[in-house]
């Protein structure tokens, strides 16, 4: 079994982002970049499945600028066997990314495609579902548990009401929740080894996909600031304020 894992390079989740002064986006120059957090869970799960003997190859793929190679390299350092980088510049909408991934799926013929449930930059939560629709494959989104049963997967999904379990036939798409597993850190020897693993580079245009945005970003602004509140000295004062000033209890 072969698992393809899609990973995205985003601003590190610990960075407090800043909006550009001309309101065209957020500042990405000289900002720490990392793998989108749930994509780390996706890689971890694929590597675990390979370690259990149920998969033979894990391929990491990323779409983005040249530097997204670092994100692919990180996936290789935690256990992916080889990488693919589809180079594309500018804003990439999930629809375009899904079309590019569809081309890679057609070429690589994986049994499973894993990725994070959502990217923490554009917060779209679309790519896995779109790819699944394009391939007419089953989808298991927001997965917090995956069990492989012969040619099927049993997946526990996190939904608003609690948990849902579905059974899907392979080939399938799974989008991973943060609670699926605990991603490992790359060891130094594995980081060194990853440098020798192959990364195939392609251009989005060579795959015959038009990646030009369909959504015009008119402006990006800071959200309205909450005005600073006060500190109270005691519980009694707090309760008094909530009752008489804020009138919420």
């Amino acid at each position, binding site marked *: 079994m072969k698992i393809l894992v899609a990973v995205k390079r985003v601003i590190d989740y*610990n960075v407090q982002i800043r909006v550009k002064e001309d309101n065209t986006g957020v500042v990405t120059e000289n900002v720490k970049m990392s793998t989108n957090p749930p994509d780390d869970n996706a890689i971890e799960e694929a590597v675990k499945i390979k370690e259990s003997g149920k998969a033979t190859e894990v391929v990491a793929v990323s779409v983005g600028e040249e530097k997204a190679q670092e994100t692919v390299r990180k996936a290789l350092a935690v256990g992916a066997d080889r990488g693919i980088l589809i180079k594309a510049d500018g804003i990439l909408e999930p629809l375009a990314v899904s079309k590019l991934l569809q081309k890679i799926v057609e070429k690589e013929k994986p049994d499973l495609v894993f990725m994070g449930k959502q990217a923490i930059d554009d917060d*779209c939560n679309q790519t896995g579902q779109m790819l699944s629709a394009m391939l007419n494959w089953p989808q298991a*989104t927001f997965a917090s548990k995956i069990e492989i049963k012969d040619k099927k997967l049993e997946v526990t999904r996190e*939904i608003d009401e609690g948990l*849902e379990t579905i059974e899907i036939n392979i080939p399938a798409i799974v989008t991973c929740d943060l609670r699926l597993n605990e991603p490992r850190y790359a060891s130094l020897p594995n980081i060194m080894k990853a440098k020798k693993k192959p990364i195939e580079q392609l251009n989005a245009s060579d795959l015959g996909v038009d990646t030009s945005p369909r959504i015009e970003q*008119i402006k990006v602004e800071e959200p309205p600031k909450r005005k600073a509140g006060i500190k109270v000295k005691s519980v009694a004062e*707090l309760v008094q304020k909530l009752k008489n000033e804020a009138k919420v209890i």
Partner: protein
Amino acid sequence: MSVLLIAEHNNKELKSFTLNAVTAASQMDSDLHAVIIGNNCGDAAKKLSELPLVKKVIQVEAAHYENFVAENFAPVIVKLAENYSHVVCSANTFGKNLMPRIAAALDTSQVSDIIKVISADTFLRPIYAGNAFATVKSKDPKKCITIRPTSFDPCESSGGSAPIEKAEPSEEFNSTKFVKREEIKSDRPELGTARVVVSGGRGMQSGDNFKLITSVADKLNAAIGASRAAVDAGYISNDHQVGQTGKVVVPDLYIAIGISGAIQHLAGMKESKVIVAINKDGEAPIFSVADYGLEADLFEALPQFIEELNKLNTIQK
């Protein structure tokens, strides 16, 4: 052209957020139709037809719609979408799972999780966990939009009498089978719609200590929330998580106890009307969004808080 709203329901009743989604959809175009897909969902369809903003209800029924599997739902909606300029539903796990499948089939770039309708093609949406707001204009001929329910008021729920039309179901998608759903039952208000939310964080130190949160919540008829740190530490189940990867809540009163205020938590609660923070670390970022901050050891403050609330005895139920 008109707007097609996808109703969320449990085959008997409409989910409350459908009312918020109707409000949002009606701001895109007043010719608003709603589709309800399910199994024996006639009662819910009737309730949908009573919403005054809904001009027509389309009801699609089949056994394979019983459990809301997106692979079964999408083809029906894609077919209906021929007649509409917009397809809209809530950005909760139902809509997040479903809408991109529809958008991909329509070759539309979906606009996710909008918080404001500026015009029929222009919307405001949070990005970077709400740390920036983007104004975006969809250039696709058909728009696929998911809306953040807490950003729109619920619509009127009675007085309308829209006609209910039946539409043909699509074939079953055989590669996905529903197995089970474990819903967390509670007598408390639902986290997403509660007027008061009391949340605990890593500062609670154990699952057992969450009883203190429960006691406060009991006094205020509140829903119980938690930070991701508390959920990950196993103090409480994940359906209580408030934040970027959990639920976004906008209660009248949000009480954060032992929560430092990580960016990802703030994204889920900072639009609350009144925020209270109780934390022994005076430098904790939660204080920067709190209207009332109390720098105190929560294990001393909470018993006092419960006692003060007992004295008040004016709790709105």
